[in-house]
């Protein structure tokens, strides 16, 4: 799962797609995930990292991550596989 190369992001969770002009805001966890995606981190590694860092159930977070990835896909933020 890769972020499109030209997507601009900020530490505050602002995401800008220069191809469409769309911009989005995420919460701090979303920003952290986007930052990991930007480094081409695999999804299972993202789950491990977030669950190690925060008090969150791995299964629950996995579901939330799926939802988040779906939103990013719908918003054309991710590379098409």
């Amino acid at each position: 799962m890769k972020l499109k190369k030209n997507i601009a992001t900020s530490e505050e969770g602002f995401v800008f797609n220069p191809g469409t002009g769309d911009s989005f805001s995420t919460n701090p966890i979303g920003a952290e995930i986007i930052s990991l995606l930007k480094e081409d981190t695999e999804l299972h590694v993202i789950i491990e990292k977030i669950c190690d860092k925060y008090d969150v159930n791995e299964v629950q977070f996995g579901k939330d991550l799926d939802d988040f990835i779906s939103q990013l896909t719908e918003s054309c933020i991710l590379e098409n596989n």
Partner: protein
Amino acid sequence: MNIKIGKSDNYFKKQLVVAVTALNAVDSPGPGVAVIRAIRECPDFEVRIIGLSYESLEPGSYMHDLVDKTYQIPYPSAGTDALLGRLMYIHEREKIDLIIPNFDSELFNFIKLRDKLAQSGIHTFLPDLEKFEARDKVKLFEFGKKHGLMVPEDKIIHEAKDLKATAEKIGYPMVVKGKFYDAIIVNTLEQAQKAFYKIQAKWGLPIIVQEFINGTEINVAALGDGEGNAISVIPMRKLYITDKGKAWSGITIDDSSYIELARKFIKVTKWRGGCELEIMQSDDGKSYIMEVNPRFPAWIYLTAAAGQNQPASLVKMAMGQKVEPFTEYEVGKIFIRYAWDLITDVSEFQKISGTGEL
């Protein structure tokens, strides 16, 4: 003491006298003020700006930091003789170097007068009449077919009774459009008839009925050199749209498909001057040309802000300078339009109303 003397371009800059139309700034503003702003920002020349207005309350006429002097000109319906007479009167006083007309409805007259203006030393930078007419709304579908550009199917009608058969062919929803401005999306025959009469009353006949394309609307400002080269192309996505469908805010975007489309349009038409392509990217990713406006759009200052000053480049080319095509621009530049109450005195209003000059 080491004293040097060098040529400074500033000392030798000739002041160009540039006349610009479309100084109105209502909720569907004319491009004139934005064109002037961009030209004034160019460090390569000094300008004296002559505003050409149609009405006494066009805001640009009162913006004395942008417009040095304004003259009223006759409405396009008065014809080319009346326009030429007035322009010659202004030229005697101002020694105009260049006229940049910015209204669709006046362009026909200015193109017709192009040679006569040139004989008097007034430059223009306009498309040929044939090219200007080929991209007209009423001919756009045929134009697209001829050049392999995707344009929604349409039908040109002169009577409301033709709406029914048109709807059967095109299907609802469809768009009812005026020959110059206005477009209304309709879903039933009753709505179509209402839209027909409303637009007919305002803009006359014919009426264009066009297939509705659902998708994302992108506008592209482009400048052609008249030899098939696109000197500048800037795509913009509308971020905020008024109830008239005009962009009140927009952002420059990075999508090479729109740039290629605009380049293709300029290449096949050998377009000379500024233009705006209204593109609809359908949900299945196809780019349709919805309209080609034969002049700069009202948001043209964004091109200067993004690094490709199209009005200033037009001035240079009109004055015979070779301009190389731009290759880069800033993506993510946003314009946000706003309304500002300009305060003036009745004496100014009286002056332009009474003498036609300000």
